[in-house]
């Protein structure tokens, strides 16, 4: 008994230490974000004088930086472009990958086997090993760069392998074939069976894939930078890049611009925190 009570206090002490350590690390982690928020509200001369001073010690607190960044970045347009690309690519890859995975699971033929093996193998190919021929083919031979559709198509293609792999595992493990047989007996066509019976059952894995894919599409820089150059079509990361190039000395505006890019995701994160973290964990562990 005595022993356990000693263990109890010791545990309390070590837990207190753990907590203290965590809080210190956590503050260090958040430090860059805090700096961005503080400095986005300051004037340039105050930033240069003392970038880490707290808000109440300076005078020129204002939202001017945000107004400037908002207009100079063409924020609304870039946001709209990012939204269109992300939503269309996500919907497309989710639908096509689910259908393809379903076909592969239910048809054990040569095409299924070869396609699936190729997809699994292709997952280790980094984007950089494909980007040069990709630009040669789509920019040179086909000349279809600078269209949103091209980017959406490429996003879809690149995330296909991973998505099919995840759907494949889920369908194989969780969707009993008896259900589909019952649907056929009741007179469903294959299409109806898939969309009315199977697809709704895929909800958990769809949620995971939508989160993983849309985050990746929203934040991607390299692929969009190769496909889109037309100023009207730039997505948020691309317009951040050109904005930063033009205003790199205007720190306040830059900080406001960066914050504007981050805020939409953070809002979504606060609302969907549980789903996002759950999705990422199950995506990684599989």
């Amino acid at each position, binding site marked *: 008994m005595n022993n356990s009570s000693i263990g109890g206090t010791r545990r309390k002490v070590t*837990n207190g230490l*753990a*907590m203290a*350590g*965590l809080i210190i690390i*956590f503050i260090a*982690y*958040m*430090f*860059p974000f805090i*700096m961005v928020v503080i*400095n986005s509200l300051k004037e340039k001369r105050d930033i240069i004088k*003392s*970038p*880490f001073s707290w808000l109440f010690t300076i005078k020129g607190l204002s939202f001017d930086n945000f107004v400037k960044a908002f207009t100079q970045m063409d924020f609304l347009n870039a946001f709209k472009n990012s939204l269109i690309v992300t939503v269309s690519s996500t919907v497309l890859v989710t639908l096509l990958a689910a*259908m*393809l995975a379903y*076909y592969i699971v239910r*048809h054990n033929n040569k095409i299924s086997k070869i*396609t699936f093996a*190729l997809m699994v193998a*292709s997952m*280790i190919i*980094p984007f*950089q*090993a*494909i*980007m*040069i*021929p*990709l*630009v*040669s*083919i789509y920019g*040179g031979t086909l000349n279809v760069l600078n269209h949103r559709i091209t980017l959406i198509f490429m996003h*879809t*293609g*690149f995330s*296909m*392998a991973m998505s099919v792999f995840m759907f494949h595992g889920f369908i194989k493990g969780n969707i009993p074939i008896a259900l589909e047989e019952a649907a*056929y007996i009741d007179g469903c066509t*294959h*299409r109806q069976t*898939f969309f009315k019976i199977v697809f709704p059952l895929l909800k958990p894995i769809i949620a995971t894939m939508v989160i993983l894919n849309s*985050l990746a599409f929203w*934040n991607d*820089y*390299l692929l969009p930078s190769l496909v889109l150059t037309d100023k009207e079509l730039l997505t948020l*990361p691309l317009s951040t890049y050109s904005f*930063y190039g033009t205003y790199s000395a205007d*720190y306040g505006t*830059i900080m406001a611009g960066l914050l504007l*890019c*981050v805020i939409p*995701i953070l809002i979504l*994160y606060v609302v969907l925190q549980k789903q996002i*973290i759950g999705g*990422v964990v199950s995506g*990684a*562990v599989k």
Partner: protein
Amino acid sequence: MKGKSGGKDFCGFALPGMFCFFAVVILPFVYGVYLTLTDWNGVSSVKNFVGGANFLSVLKDSQFWTSLLLTFKYVIFVVIIVNIMAFAIAYLLTRGIKGQNFFRAGFFTPNLIGGLVLGYIWQFVFSRVFVGIGEATGWSLFEASWLSDPNLAFAALVLVSVWQLSGYMILIYVAGFMGLSQDVMEAASIDGATGWVKLRSIILPLMMSSITICLFLTLSRAFMVYDVNLSLTAGAPYGTTEMAAMHVYEKAFTSRQFGVGQAEALILFVIVAIISGIQVYLTKRQEVEA
């Protein structure tokens, strides 16, 4: 599904997805292998077949080997620091302290933001905030911007990557710790295992599957680092922080040597594939069932 309408099913269900995949991944990959055998500059309509000349140029491209060496150094630092930190933080988080979910969510935040924006945020921190701290305190470490010194700029890259990647790994390690069987932990304690012994002989072997995943993810991500490299240092000062992926990009799209660039990209791919293959093989062998 019945075999009779197999063809129709194939067109309706499998073909669209397969088309995207083959057109965007397989076709360019195969075409890329062909590109390494030509002297194409990305613009001209003439492509001459040059055989192995591009690979010979790669051998002579000392900048590529420098950047590859730097990438190796970077990968080693990032993989080790990220995994030790994430493992330790996950361990602390799963001791039943209050606010576990809050911390976990906070640590994950950098992962939600693209590498480009993160790099810019840190560029400001290194070039302004740290310098400001240096001026106020007189610490020589912060006197000048880290980004203007080759060694410190490299350290900055490692620091930012660790900051960015560890949140993701914390999630995976936390899931691993939560999956540890309480019975086994209790049995170990009753048998007198504490602290270091318990960690080494009980926890580490049982966490091996999480470690396999985390090592694999950090390895492949660190090797292909580009966004953060571009926005934080862009290779500066004087190209001393140019990583392999960035060098490949420059070679193809700035120097207009598509064949050489693609040859270097393929070499990089083979190296990454071999190293992560070996890593998965080695760590998988260590995995045990509780």
